[in-house]
Structure formats: structure tokens, C-alpha cells
């Protein structure tokens, strides 16, 4: 019988530094997957942790990882050419069919940009697949901005973008303030056509959803992705259960109609 807990080794093809503590690891991988799915990264001696996929290529996947715990601290000692273990992909992910021919608005907070980046990459590859697109993304400070070159490339390609930071030193010329501040300014041509994706820290998601509902976006056109403790990713350990829902099996991506019923 196959063992669902058995990780496989994958080679690090490239490491892209975003900030002092956040890096993208480009890992050799071939297989079907969709944005928003995740892997359990598995480092012997240090343990496992769920990491969502931030980019999907023909023979690679990207994992954007912040040094924040035992496994991720160790991971940052790895170099290009070395291998580390992982298992997955797990979870449902974002289904692109929901966003085709729609006005897509993606709202991301900090590292919440990683799980939705795959959607933006898809739209960047084929702008004609959507009616309109806007990315509203917030970071703590200008130093915390992730995917700087991608953000520039998307902007260059004419994809709408509002980048804001919670706070900055005097003289900063970009937007300052929480993402919720910019929701009322977003252009929505037809409320029936809009699909909103919101991913970020729990409080950011909670208040951002409310802002979109205030704007009149129907609940079934809002999508969120949840993050919980996951030891297994297989519906066994119980750590990610919310009511009768296992985030690892049924999520992490939910339509807000379902997500609003979940509670910890």
C-alpha cells in the first residue's frame, strides 16, 4: 500500500530573495496542480509544515517561505542544487474556471500574495481570459514587499495594481494604509461580473470581506483561503478542523458563502 506520509526529494533549482526573511525556493516538480494548493515541506529532524505554492511551471513549482519557525528556519540554510523533502500537493486550490471572462479583483495581505500569485501569473500569460483585473496588495512596510519584480512586470503588462503599505518613513511616495482603505476606490464596471479573491492574515480577511460586501459584491463572488495548523494534510490529525470542515481536504480555498459558516 502506498504511504501517504512518505515525502519525496526535490532539487532546489533557484532561490529568489524577497526580504531578509522571505525567499522563494524554485523546486523541481512535475505533476498537475492548481494555484492555492499546498505541500507539506518535510525536513528530517525539524519536522513538517504546510507551504502554499506561489508559482507553477512546467517542471517546477515555487514555494515562498518566511523564516518563522523550526522547519522554515532550517530551510533557509539550504542552497541551490541541494534537495529537500516534501509531500503533496494537497487541498482544492483556486479553480481558474471561476475567474474566466470576469472582472477579477485580488486582494492580498503580505505573504497571502503567495497562494494567489499563481492566478495572477495565469492572467498575466493570457490577459484576454478575463474582462478586467486588479490587484490590491498590502505589506507592512516598503521593506516587506514580496515579488517586487513580478509586481513590476504585471504593472508593465497593464494589469491594474494598487500597492499599499501599513506604514512607511516620511518621504515614501506610494500608498500608505490598510488594504481596506482602498476597496471603496476600486473600479467595478458590472457587479454581476466581478470575482473577488481575498487572502491574508485572519483579521485582514475578515475586514476586507466586509468592505467588499459594503461595496455590494455578492457573497458567492468572494473567495478566501484559510491557514490552520496542519500536521498531516490528509484529514487525520484534526488540527485544521473548523466545524465539520477539514481545511486540508475541503479547502484551503472556500467560497465566502461556505467560509462565513466556519468558526474555530
Amino acid at each position, binding site marked *: 500500500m502506498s504511504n501517504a*506520509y512518505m515525502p519525496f*526529494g526535490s532539487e532546489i533549482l533557484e532561490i529568489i530573495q524577497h526580504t531578509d526573511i522571505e525567499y522563494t525556493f524554485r523546486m523541481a516538480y512535475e505533476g498537475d496542480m492548481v494555484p492555492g494548493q499546498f505541500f507539506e515541506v518535510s525536513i528530517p529532524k525539524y519536522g513538517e509544515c504546510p507551504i502554499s505554492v506561489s508559482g507553477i511551471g512546467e517542471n517546477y513549482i515555487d514555494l515562498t517561505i518566511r523564516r518563522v519557525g523550526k522547519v522554515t528556519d532550517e530551510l533557509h540554510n539550504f542552497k541551490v542544487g541541494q534537495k529537500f523533502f516534501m509531500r503533496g500537493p494537497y487541498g482544492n486550490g483556486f479553480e481558474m474556471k471561476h475567474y474566466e471572462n470576469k472582472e477579477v479583483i485580488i486582494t492580498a495581505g503580505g505573504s497571502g500574495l503567495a497562494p494567489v500569485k499563481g492566478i495572477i501569473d495565469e492572467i498575466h500569460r493570457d490577459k484576454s481570459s478575463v474582462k478586467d483585473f486588479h490587484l490590491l496588495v498590502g505589506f507592512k512596510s516598503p521593506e516587506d514587499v514580496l515579488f517586487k519584480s513580478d509586481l513590476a512586470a504585471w504593472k508593465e503588462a497593464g494589469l491594474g495594481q494598487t500597492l499599499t503599505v501599513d506604514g512607511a518613513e516620511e518621504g515614501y511616495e506610494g500608498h500608505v494604509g490598510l488594504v481596506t482603505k482602498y476597496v471603496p476606490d476600486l473600479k467595478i464596471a458590472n457587479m454581476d461580473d466581478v470575482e473577488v479573491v481575498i487572502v491574508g492574515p485572519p483579521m485582514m480577511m475578515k475586514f476586507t470581506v466586509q468592505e467588499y460586501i459594503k461595496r455590494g459584491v455578492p457573497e458567492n463572488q468572494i473567495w478566501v483561503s484559510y491557514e490552520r495548523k496542519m500536521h498531516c494534510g490528509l*484529514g487525520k490529525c484534526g488540527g485544521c478542523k473548523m466545524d465539520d470542515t477539514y481545511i486540508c481536504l475541503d479547502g484551503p480555498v472556500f467560497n465566502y458563502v461556505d467560509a462565513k459558516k466556519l468558526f474555530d
Partner: protein
Amino acid sequence: MKLRVNNAEINSVFEQLSGEYRIIAPVRKPLRGTMSDTDAIRYEEVTTIEEIEFRDKAQFSAKEVMQPITQVLFYFTEDEYKIPAADQKKILLFLRACDIHALDRFDQIYLDNGPVDPYYKQIRDRVKIALIGCEHSYRNCFCVSMGTNKADTYAMGIQPVDGGANVELNEKDLAQAFAALTGAEHIEFEVPFVTENTTKVTVPENIDGKGVAELDIWREYDSRCVACGKCNFVCPTCTCFGMQDIFYKDNENTGERRRVWTSCHVDGYTDMAGGHGFRKKHGDRMRFKTLHKVHDYNKRFNKHMCVGCGRCDDACPSYISFSSCVNKLSDLEKGAK
């Protein structure tokens, strides 16, 4: 096949089975209880019928057999994971009716919810169940309320009688072993089961979990519950685990990945890297457990997780009663109508 056999004959069958089976049953450990001058009753391997504790309820369930407290998933070096060799012996497991139902609740999670868990399945496939009849209900039991007082799938049923036992055999291997006994007498009997408990529980059938989570009734448990997790660890249906990597002192590049019991009442259960966690208040943990046992598991799998064994109430150092808590919920539901 139903037989009356004496203890010596049962022991000869046990011995005959011992090449192929491990016989695991509740055993009384004198003066090993948590309070002074009390005994502990927990599951262990036995070789004779006299070792098996039939009189009182086991304080711990048999889940230690199905899901060991710590279980090695892999031995690893820096670049290789190796699956440990598994025991191949069959297991004859002595369970009361409630605990047989508990095994079904475990199966649901480990065999059905997502992919099959290979470690659980490896053990589960080797288990044959021996039903211990209940002559009477025990303190805090509410199996009748949960519909788990009677079991109908078991390889062997047993009712101890003076100097021996009545046995019901529903499975080929065991029937053959017992049929070979010269002194066995064919009789008619039914494995006894409880038809009424002192503790009665009404499970609320139509609650709105999210609404219930916001009620004030949980605040009582903020201070009463000390978050020790005993209720979870004695529960025959609590399935949660955490992962743990350890490495060996003499060679730090080799070690084990283990899974270890964890529980929703214990600190750290929901904590993620970076420190964010959920349900800091102990009352919210009581609510999370209660709803899992009598609400959301049923919503997902069409049966309640709780089997009414009452061990949580037996074990709680703060005398919190789970059954009273469930009754409070159903009273609230009735009151709301």
C-alpha cells in the same frame, strides 16, 4: 456457535492461539490508580482469562492499541526515510459494546476521511473483536442514550460465569479452536447488554454550531477546565495527533518521525509557526470538543462521535461533566423552540 467452557479450557485455547495472535484485554493493576488506594484498569497483552478484568470499566480505552501514544512513522537519515517493520500477529481485542462503536468512529477518520492511513490500516486489518458483555451500567455511562449499548459485529462474545465463561463464536478460526475442546458444552445464551443507564443524555439534533459557539454557557468552563486533556486521552474516539521529529544523541543525522497523541484541550493544539493560535479560552476548547462529539462529526459522517462510555467524566480532575454539558445544550435547544 455458543458454548459453556471452563477457565482452563479457555486458557488452552488462548495458548493455542498465541502463536498467531496477541490477546489484548483490560487488566487490573492493583494500587496503580491516580488516587491513593485505587487500582488502574487499562489495556495490556494477556495469556490467561483470569488476567482479564471483566468486573469494572477500563479507565483507558483500547485506542492505545489502534493508535499508539507515540508511533514511529519513519526512521530517517539526512536523505532517506524508512518505514518501520510492522508487527504481523493478529490481535484478539476484548472490548465492551461502546468501545466497539468507538472503533467504528476511528475507522471513519483513518480509513475514510481523505486517503487511507497506512499505519492504522496495518493494525486494523489484524484486529478481531471479542465483545465483553455488560451485566450492568457503570458510573457516568450513557451508552443507551447514544445507541451504542449493543454491538452486532464481533468475532467472539464473552460472558464470564463462575469458573468459566459463556462464549459466542462468529468466526471460523476461533470457532475451530473452541470446537476442539472436549469439555465444551453447547448452550443457549445472549451476550448481555445494558438497557438503561443512570445517566441519560439528550443530544440536541438541530443546533446551529456557530450560534452555540457564541453562547455564554462556555464561559463557566474558562476557569473550571484546567486544560489537562485527560478527557481527550481517555476518550475512545479522540483521534487527533501531532508530529514530532527526534534525533539520536549518538548520531544527530539519524532519527525518527513520530506521531504522538495531542488534544484540543491542551495548550498549543492550534498554534501555528509565528505564534498565531485559536481558542485561547478553555471554555472554547470545551465547546470545540463537545460540538465535535455531538454535532459536527454527525454533520459530516451521519453518526455521533461520542459513544457514551463516560470516561471523560470519570477522569476530569475538575469534575466537569460532559453529559451534563450536552444536556444543557439540548435544554437550550428546547427552550429556544
